[in-house]
């Protein structure tokens, strides 16, 4: 901080440089420092992830043992009143399962992974990597976090209301979502409405965040940090920012319209002549379109997949060069790929809607774009894979996760290819195959990438390494269990298991065998053959939960007891975040940052170290001329 003290000339900053003067609440709670906000995001997101994981475990119990009461080791978390309301003789009911399913998806996507990838890593690392003192709008950054937190709390608070939390799937399709909780007199206090309110807040938070990120990346790059010297991480954050900026607002529009449907009784998404068993002919004007909601939802929904994915790829792309000691292979093609990926992700959304009867022409268009978007994804993943070739790989904890990311994401991506075709969609739509596909992308894919990020930047954040032993105890069971959980889903899906069966196919099995006693129903057979996989998968889930305990221990105990880092650049990496003190103070850099070269200059023959950091002024200028490359750009 001393470098800045010199530039003090009075008028505005009584608040910034004097660390010891910042009161606790301003430093840790209402902080405007991008690193603290990043950590707030990270911790909150991990808590939400844990909660989402727990919901999933309850669901997996219901799938594996639909007739047995929830065991006490899972149900102790509920109060007795809650259990009396939502469990039937201790068993998970269909209604409760729907609630947990909808909230599992919502929490994992909107409250867990986006805030962890974009909010936490993006906030902590991006300004450091471009050599900025902070985000362009620190207060906006703080608001962004707090709106996210309030939105998340509102959504989760609805678990304890009369109506329970939202139950109409994380996609919240109307008219189902329009009718849900209709019995609640004050619609503002219905879980389904709270979900919408929470969602509007989360979207607002993301919008503020993305405006901030993009502005920061465009305008606050350090001297010499030209576009093609940006680490891939920053490029990924830039594209993610644009995706959030442009894809989220249509969902906000949909959310507001659905809110109108609920509280102002409009019929945006309610068709004419709706008839329900319980209420008869709906007292609504009708004339709306359920398909409109799906279009608006998936216009966000598909870019959202890349909002989840890009931060994870970004982490992996930083970790692989540092641990192979060679440059990222095909940096430029990766950058162009990620830009094309960002663009294409806006025109593939209706591949989620093949079964709605949009028409052959529309389906064909979206089928084509969907197949096209696999090209940039494959370029990126191939570049990462080739980056390993010929490197001297160090299997540090972050590298383990990064290496696992590549095949796991590969399986996720490849299982998606069949789904791109609408003919195959006929068979696989809404089956466990789809669940298996996107969970391979999100859980062992994206989450592994983010775990890699935690292990990679932990030494910068705390000044200590995480325990190597505990990392291995965390990694190997996680890798095995993820596959135990998700691989059988692909099989089950092809066997016809529907994704919304709360009893794991059990009721279907009974009915089908009763109806065709000779077993002629092909699905009765395939369901019977695959139903016991439910139990295998559920055990996988529980072991996976246990496997996260070493991580939690590691995360907290290494903070105080881990091995101390030897230098500010423990991995001998090249990007700018390693040029800061450990941990970086408010304002980040202690010297005037200038950038002299690309982000991944490892094992350069003209350098005596095997890495050549971006910030090191060339001491042996080639050809006798002093290197002026840092003066590219501004100043």
């Amino acid at each position, binding site marked *: 901080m001393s470098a800045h003290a010199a530039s003090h000339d009075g008028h505005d900053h009584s608040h910034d440089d004097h660390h010891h003067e910042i009161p606790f609440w301003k430093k840790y709670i209402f902080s405007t420092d991008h690193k603290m906000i990043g950590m707030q995001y990270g911790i909150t997101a991990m808590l939400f992830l844990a909660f989402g994981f727990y919901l999933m475990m309850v669901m997996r119990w219901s799938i594996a043992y639909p007739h047995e009461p929830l065991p006490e080791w899972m149900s102790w978390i509920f109060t007795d009143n809650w259990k009396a309301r939502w469990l039937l003789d201790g068993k998970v009911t269909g209604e409760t399962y729907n609630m947990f399913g909808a909230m599992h998806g919502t929490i994992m996507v909107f409250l867990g992974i986006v805030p962890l990838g974009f909010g936490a890593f993006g906030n902590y690392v991006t300004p450091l990597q471009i050599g900025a003192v902070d985000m362009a709008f620190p207060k906006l950054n703080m608001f962004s976090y707090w709106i996210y937190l309030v939105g998340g709390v509102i959504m989760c608070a609805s678990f304890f209301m009369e109506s329970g939390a939202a139950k109409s799937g994380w996609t919240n399709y109307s008219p189902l979502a329009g009718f849900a909780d209709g*019995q609640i007199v004050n619609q503002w206090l219905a879980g389904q409405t709270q979900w919408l309110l929470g969602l509007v807040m989360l979207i607002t938070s993301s919008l503020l965040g993305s405006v901030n990120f993009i502005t920061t990346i465009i305008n606050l790059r350090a001297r010499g940090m030209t576009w093609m010297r940006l680490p891939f991480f920053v490029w990924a954050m830039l594209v993610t920012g644009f995706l959030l900026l442009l894809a989220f607002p249509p969902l906000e529009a949909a959310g507001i319209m659905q809110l109108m449907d609920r509280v102002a009784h409009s019929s945006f998404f309610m068709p004419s002549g709706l008839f329900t068993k319980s209420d008869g002919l709906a007292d609504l004007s009708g004339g709306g379109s359920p398909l409109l909601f799906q279009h608006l939802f998936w216009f966000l929904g598909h870019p959202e997949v890349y909002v989840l994915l890009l931060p994870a790829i970004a982490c992996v792309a930083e970790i692989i060069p540092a641990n192979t000691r060679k440059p990222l292979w095909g940096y430029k093609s990766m950058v162009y790929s990620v830009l094309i990926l960002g663009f294409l992700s806006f025109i593939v959304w209706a591949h989620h809607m093949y079964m709605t009867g949009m028409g052959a022409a529309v389906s064909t268009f979206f089928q084509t774009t969907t197949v096209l978007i696999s090209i940039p994804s494959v370029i990126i993943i191939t570049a990462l894979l080739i980056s390993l070739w010929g490197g001297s790989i160090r299997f540090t904890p972050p590298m383990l996760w990064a290496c696992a990311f590549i095949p796991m994401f590969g399986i996720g991506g490849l299982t998606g290819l069949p789904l791109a075709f609408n003919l195959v969609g006929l068979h696989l739509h809404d089956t466990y195959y789809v669940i298996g596909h996107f969970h391979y992308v999100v859980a062992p894919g994206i989450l592994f990438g983010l775990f890699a990020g935690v292990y990679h930047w932990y030494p910068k954040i705390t000044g200590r390494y995480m325990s190597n032993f505990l990392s291995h105890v965390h990694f190997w069971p996680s890798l095995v269990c993820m596959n135990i959980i998700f691989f059988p889903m692909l099989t089950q899906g092809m066997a016809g298991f529907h994704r919304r069966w709360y009893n794991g196919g059990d009721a279907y099995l009974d009915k089908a065998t009763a109806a065709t006693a000779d077993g002629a129903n092909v699905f009765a057979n395939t369901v019977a053959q695959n139903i016991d996989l439910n139990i295998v998968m559920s055990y996988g889930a529980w072991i996976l939960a246990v496997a996260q305990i070493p991580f939690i221990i590691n995360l907290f105990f290494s903070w105080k007891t881990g091995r101390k880092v030897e230098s500010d650049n423990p991995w001998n990496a090249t990007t700018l975040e390693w040029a800061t003190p450990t941990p970086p103070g408010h304002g980040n850099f202690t010297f005037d940052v200038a950038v002299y070269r690309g982000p991944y200059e490892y094992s350069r023959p003209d350098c005596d170290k095997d890495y050549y950091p971006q910030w090191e002024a060339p001491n042996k200028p080639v050809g006798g001329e002093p290197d002026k490359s840092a003066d590219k750009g501004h100043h």
Partner: protein
Amino acid sequence: MEIPYIVKPRKDTGLINSKIAIWLFLASEVMLFGGFFSAYVYLRLGADYPWPERTLPVLPGLINTFILIGSSVTVVFAWVALKLGNWRQFQIYMGITVACAAIFMVLKGIEYNVKFHHQAARLHDYTVVEGHLGYELKDGADTHHPKDGDYVLDRNGKKIEENMIRVVAEKVTFAVKRFHAPWVSEMLAEAEHAKSEIKLAADIKMVVEEGNEPVTLAKAGEPLSLDLLGKIRKAQLAALKHNASLRTDALRLEWKEAKDANPGKKGWQLASDVNIDVGALEPRLLTEVSTVEFTVDPPTRFLFKPRDIKEGAASSTLRDNTIITGAMEASPMVFHNLDAIDFQWLVMKAKEKGISPETAIANSWLMKNSEFVREAWAWHLVRNEKKQEVLNKRYGFKEDGKTPKQTLTHKELYRLGWKDLGEMGVETKGVKIGGVAKIKEEFMGPNYKARGEKTFPHLSVPREQIRHAAKFSPAWNTYYAIYFTITGLHGLHVIGGALVLLYYLVFGRKMFLSNPEWFANRVEVGGLFWHFVDLVWIFAFPIFYLM
């Protein structure tokens, strides 16, 4: 620590931070309103009812358009004044901008208010009637010219809009877990006002402790109160909790035994045989009381909003599952001023079924039951013929010499709006208005007082004829839904933008003196947002008012 490029632009990008940010923000706003405008197109193209065209008063909308465009100009002038260092001029132009915003919102408010007081109803035969609701009158009062003393007043001394469901309650049965407290209070007050009593119908006896004898929680005849209901609810929740945990334990035990007895068998193979032994559990269970019944003595008339109740001849159910036992009184919807008769939808449905529009209209409930409507329709047909003749003269016929080149629109053919009814009043009944009343009418819609019942008659529609009814609110149809959503959101943007500009105007002086360039940047960013608000309106105005 200081964030760079707040005041001076960065050289290679040529931009200050806030300029980038506002353009990004506006891009996301474009996507937001883009979503709504797409929804408008989607809903309009897919509408399965006659989309209301040109139903909003154009004049206030047009004035608002010019006001917003004007304010977009003045906000630039204000910024220029700042760049020139002229604070006084900045104040004037910014003042005008904010004042324009205020006028815009006032006009918008008037427009909204008119809509929220305008009732529409669709009958089962798809006839649509529009107008203003009347208030409940005492028997024998003059429906056309009620005097102050003719109205039935509720217990607060207010007139009762004739759109309520009236039930004479003899018994009220509450759902213990989820009765809606405000409604209970409402019933209590209503009963007190009518000097009747709501009393518990039978003793509430519950086993509240395991193994004990049942205790009497409340005796028959105890008056209804929220405390009483609360007490029963508390006992009920405790019972549910106790019983659920007993049943859960019992089921766990059964499963353990079943699994021990059948090693190797799968859960789903055993499931049908594993059941709780209810008989063994029975003595330990607490009593569950899910509903409590009260009698209303003497039977009292309760009023409910149509949306809150599913009415039936002998018993009705409220949305909180409260059951009201008792006869439903006639609960017609009464238009004191009927100002539109619309057969467009009915004709559309008739054509789908292959019925001729004339037959369908002649058979409609409205034509059969209202003398006025028959008269008006006859007049309308004659006038339409004249209109068609005018068209024929002007545009001529097609080659066959019979088919006119230009015909009246569907709306002209099958809808009698308030202007048509006004015309008819002038022509056949000698109703004339002029001067201020006329101007007011141009601006705010029909002038009921000046025109009276000769133009806008009284109409009572029985409840069972009504399929869907609402004010001109989002609930009426998707047109009003998208209209209120887009203009409402736009209005919020106007308010938000105006507040920011007002903040600059009121609190900007200090910053203007200390850092004029930074302040000008802020005003510029605010002005960019203001242009965007203007732009949205320029799209919204034609699609809602003109098309």
